[in-house]
């Protein structure tokens, strides 16, 4: 177990280093950073001034080394627009995004897992049709459209929830539903197919041949194996959500990381975009690491892997 964890941590660190380098080059592929940061009508002198001010005139490898050494100390540069350190800005936005991601995830899991289990355990029944229907709708309805519909119905017409802003639990409902709807569809579909698969596994037949009750077989043999599938997909989705949803946060004016990306791009805030990209990737890596730990706790084959 320790060995497994150790190797996963090392892999994660290597992954983050890779992400840093990749982001560094990718954002520079979008064009000359100095020109991007300068207003459109800026004079060449002004562009040149920005270039010097931010050190973009130096050789690229020098810039990379400096960027990496700063990143290692948690310094992702200073936002051009906000005139504040990028990492600090991201950290202040993080609670809002985290709150939204957790709420959306909880909504998706609480609805999807029982539905998927009921559908998968009773194939061909009304429950199964419902589960498949929800799975299909969840994965096909675009979340920005759903967000607008939720606002029209529940905020404008019925007035049950505020249509924008982050102001107490009630304001969390609509964005969480909108954001959680896609993963909900995915979770239903995967839970259903995992239950269908596991319930016809040989070891479940063995469990029946021992005379165990259906309840025990589901609790001890089926759900445990289904949870392996669920843990991995929930981890992936949560990682993505922590990077912030540009659409949902912008539509609901949710002061999270997603909305900040939108603003940073519009403001040509090159340093901030770079910082958010690194942070978002970092969240995915960290959640992935936690997922792997959860995996190992559930599945002894991973735990005892040589």
């Amino acid at each position, binding site marked *: 177990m320790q060995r497994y964890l150790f190797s996963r941590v090392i892999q994660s660190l290597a992954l983050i280093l890779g992400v840093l380098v990749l982001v560094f080059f990718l954002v520079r592929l979008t064009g000359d950073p100095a020109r991007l940061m300068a207003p459109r009508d800026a004079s060449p002198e002004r562009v040149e001034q920005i270039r010097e001010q931010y050190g973009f005139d130096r050789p690229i490898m020098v810039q990379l080394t400096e960027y990496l050494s700063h990143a290692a100390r948690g310094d992702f540069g200073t936002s051009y627009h906000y005139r504040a350190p990028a990492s600090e800005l991201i950290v202040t936005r993080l609670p809002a995004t985290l709150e939204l991601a957790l709420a959306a995830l909880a909504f998706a899991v609480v609805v999807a897992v029982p539905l998927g289990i009921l559908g998968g355990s009773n194939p*061909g029944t009304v429950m199964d049709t419902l589960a498949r229907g929800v799975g299909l709708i969840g994965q096909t309805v675009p979340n920005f459209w759903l967000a607008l519909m939720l606002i029209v119905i529940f905020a404008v017409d019925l007035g049950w929830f505020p249509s924008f802003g982050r102001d107490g639990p009630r304001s969390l409902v609509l964005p969480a539903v909108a954001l959680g709807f896609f993963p909900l569809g995915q979770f239903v579909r995967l839970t259903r197919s995992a239950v269908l698969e596991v319930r*016809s*596994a*040989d*070891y*479940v*037949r*063995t*469990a*029946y*041949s*021992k*005379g*165990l*009750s259906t309840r*025990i077989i589901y609790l*001890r*043999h089926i759900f*445990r*194996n289904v949870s392996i599938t669920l843990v991995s997909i929930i981890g992936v989705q949560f990682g993505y959500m922590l990077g912030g949803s540009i659409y949902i946060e912008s539509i609901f004016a949710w002061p999270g990381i997603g909305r900040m990306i939108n603003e940073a791009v519009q403001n040509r805030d090159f340093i901030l975009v770079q910082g958010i990209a690194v942070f978002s990737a970092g969240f995915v890596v960290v959640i992935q690491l936690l997922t792997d730990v959860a995996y190992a706790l*559930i*599945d*002894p*084959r991973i735990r*005892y892997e040589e």
Partner: protein
Amino acid sequence: MEPVLDVRDLAVQFETVEGTLHAVNGVSFRLRRGETLGIVGESGSGKSVSMMSLLRLIPEPPGKIHRGRALFYDAAETVDLLSLSNRRIGFLRGNRIGYIFQDPMSSLNPLLTVGIQIRESIERHTRLSGTQAKQRAIELLELVGIPSAAQRYGNYPHQFSGGMRQRVMIAIAISCDPAILIADEPTTALDVTVQAQILALVRRLTQELGISVIWISHDLGVIASLADRVLVMYGGTVVERGDVEELFTSPRHPYTVGLLGALPKLQGGEEQLVNIRGTPPSLFSSPTQCPFEPRCPWAFARCKTERPPEFFAGTGRVYLGGTESASTTQDTAESPEQEADEPFVAHRAACFHDLDRDQERDPSEPPAPAQGADKAAEAAGIGAPPSARGSASTDPPPAHTDSRQPSRLTGDRTGAEEL
């Protein structure tokens, strides 16, 4: 000897998109207390489905036990396994009837220790406390030959080899001292040396514990070394049954003859193995005809229209209502009432061809001379080119023709037999 299980006219169907699949089609047999009954047949012959449906382990739907009875003569009471409530069949599963499956690699839950998986069964069916159940599980691991059982108790299936896992499966199956052990090809997935160990283990344990065994296999060698009696299944029906020695030395049904002919022999030169022409039957087709008819060298028009009754091998007589009868009826093999009186020693085959064979033979000759399996196969001419078939002296004509049939069937033994 008294029976422990009496299965009558079992039929199992599966509803599929292509129609109804007749997986098991009127299977009857008895299992005597303490004996080992071998069931042979190729994939899809209904061996596993019929045994799994006894414990109602087939998925329903799409599976359905269409008809039949399976009387289980347990110590305290006699019950019909096929009509018990789910709760009561759950009480018998793993308790009075143990089941070992084919693939030990996938038959154990990878996420639970083997100890827990053995204990589960004990705790379900006995009143042992947690520590007692653990103690019993360790004893069982020792009994099935797992070294340092106490340490291995907490191991996971992936830490065991295939043979070891099958030993664990055996430990689970016998954990509650069952009356019957159903072994569904338990050695098929194992290599040969391990296979021999598992065979020896099951033989030893079931003899020591006095367990009756149903051993499913498509390996005739395994059956020969293990079984007291054998059922040969084909296309969801039993086509032949008999004591293991008799069946191997004088097979009567063309399919059995073909099966034995397809075995390589230790003695003898490099003769070519005989194969059974054609492919296994489609189980979607109507169950009224003989399933082996399309591949049978003796097939004639009648085989297409009715299922042959079971004949006592070598006599041409069928068993009817408690007395041996000189006459035959069409539905003998399908009637559960008559099956109930099956004499245990009977060697019977479900085929018309015995009728013909005996008529061909000189009446002064003793019936059913013990032929070697290979010789029988040669005589049957299965797999041989049609031109080569007529040469053997005991050989029936290559094919029946409708014009010959009435005269062949009006002998005094078969007088009642009308088409």
